């Protein structure tokens, strides 16, 4: 089942996050419509231009709303936010054409590619074909500059994270776990499987804004074995 096929709006829970922000949380599971609800509702809130709101961003299942408590109280802002919760899943904002990402699978840039093939009992060509099937979207950024989660993939492509962390995973690494792909844009440490690399960099300070891929954008993976 894809995220797009679920029309019911998940319940929203509003939670204060410190004394200058709140979280509108739509669930505990990225596959339940919560991600689609978060991206769509963030767009509704941005267009609402509520007084005192300083920042809106989405995670996998939530909308972050930063506010100035000198201008608006948590109670008033919570009320304004609840008033705007739609009864059905909101349409995703127009994110533009599907974005192609060319991947070199395996090789030195994808040290865990074969292990993922083995875990899924697929040949390398079968895994590449499966990885390039469907219309996964950018689910969220936020972990580090330019880092993006992309999904969902087909349900039979779910592998767990590695038991141990890999240190110094370079920018442009293609990570795979939990039915999702992630692309790094800076050097990080991760427990995800590193299945390949790409020349695409989602974080470039020479660009404005510095990040290209925003939540909701459809991704088209391409490429072959390294």
């Amino acid at each position, binding site marked *: 089942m894809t995220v797009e096929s679920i029309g019911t709006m998940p319940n929203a829970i509003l*939670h*204060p*996050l*410190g*004394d*200058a*922000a709140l*979280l509108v*949380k739509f669930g*505990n*599971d*990225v596959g339940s419509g919560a991600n689609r609800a978060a991206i769509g509702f963030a767009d509704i809130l941005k267009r609402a231009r509520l007084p005192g709101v*300083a*920042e*809106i*961003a*989405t*995670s*996998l*299942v*939530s909308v*972050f709303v*930063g506010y100035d*408590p*000198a201008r608006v*109280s*948590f109670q008033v802002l919570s009320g304004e936010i609840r008033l705007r919760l739609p009864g059905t899943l909101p349409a995703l904002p127009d994110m533009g054409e599907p974005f192609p990402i060319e991947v070199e699978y395996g090789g030195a840039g994808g040290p865990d590619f074969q292990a993922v093939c083995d875990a899924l009992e697929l040949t390398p060509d079968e895994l590449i074909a499966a990885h390039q099937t469907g219309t996964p979207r950018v689910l*969220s*950024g*936020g*972990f*580090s*500059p*330019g*880092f993006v989660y992309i999904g969902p993939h087909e349900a039979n492509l779910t592998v767990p994270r590695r038991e141990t962390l890999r240190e110094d995973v370079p920018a442009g690494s293609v990570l795979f776990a939990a039915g999702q792909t992630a692309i790094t*844009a*800076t*050097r990080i440490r991760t427990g995800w499987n590193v299945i390949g690399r790409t020349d695409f960099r989602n*974080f470039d*300070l020479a660009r404005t*804004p*510095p*990040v290209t891929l*925003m939540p909701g954008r459809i991704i088209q993976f391409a490429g072959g074995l390294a």
Partner: protein
Amino acid sequence: MSAITFSRVSPGSTVQDEGRPGKRVYGAAAGGPMDRGAFLEGGRLLTEKAGSAALELGMLGADFTYAGAGAQMAVSGGDFKILINGQQRGWPGLHQLEDGDRVEITTGQSGLYGYARFDREIDIEPVMGSRSANLMAGLGGGALTAGDRIGFLQASNSPPGDTSGSPWLEGPIRVLPGLHASLLGSRWADLFDADFEITSRFDRMGIRLNDRNGFFAEFDAGSLVSDFVVPGDVQILGDGTPVILMRDHQPTGGYPRVATVISAELDRLAQMRPGTRLQFQPATLAEAQRLARGGAA
């Protein structure tokens, strides 16, 4: 143009301005000064112009030489000793620097972060609207080291005047329930009897605590979906270690955050040295917001 050259710099020293608020969508926390009140005090001490960025010096301070036309330097934050050409001067205070002056800033009785702010702008190219080093996101100039030379540009800003900051509070550190406070259940109230200690494992990203009574030793949150972090979040690692996430926190995280230190307490917390005993006390959201605006405790 004028410049300073460091012959010695404490670990944990960076350039900081007001940071990068509103950039979570790009994967970067706001960052900014660890002791924001002290940073603002430096701006208030200056009388002519104020650079938007300051040197944020770690606990051991720094030695540097100034070259260029006469300049104002405001120092503030924690308790440090300052010598200019071997003569003891005031901390906090406003000092005049002349070409060739040698400044020695060394550790005092308390505090971890000191600020030196000038009547001119630190010559670092702003990145995403800020000159701050963000060590987690890898933005800005990184940590300062001996041998570094920092040039100055003309500052265009007037000193900020009398901006009221948060009061310096006393007693246990005030916290609000965190995003995952409900995982503590009825133990929430017991959190305020537990004893913690600041360890030597701290930086701009977070402070590891020693959980002296093992309050979190058996705490098991299971698997959580990754979500947004705010400064002050008390995060419990898989082995039960509490870590208070500070200004350069990672923007999102998957470990449970059981409590959140209120904004008005972050400066005091940032200045606590390793070995400082720590307890928490509950605050209300209204109280936290009143204190953040400069209200009395």
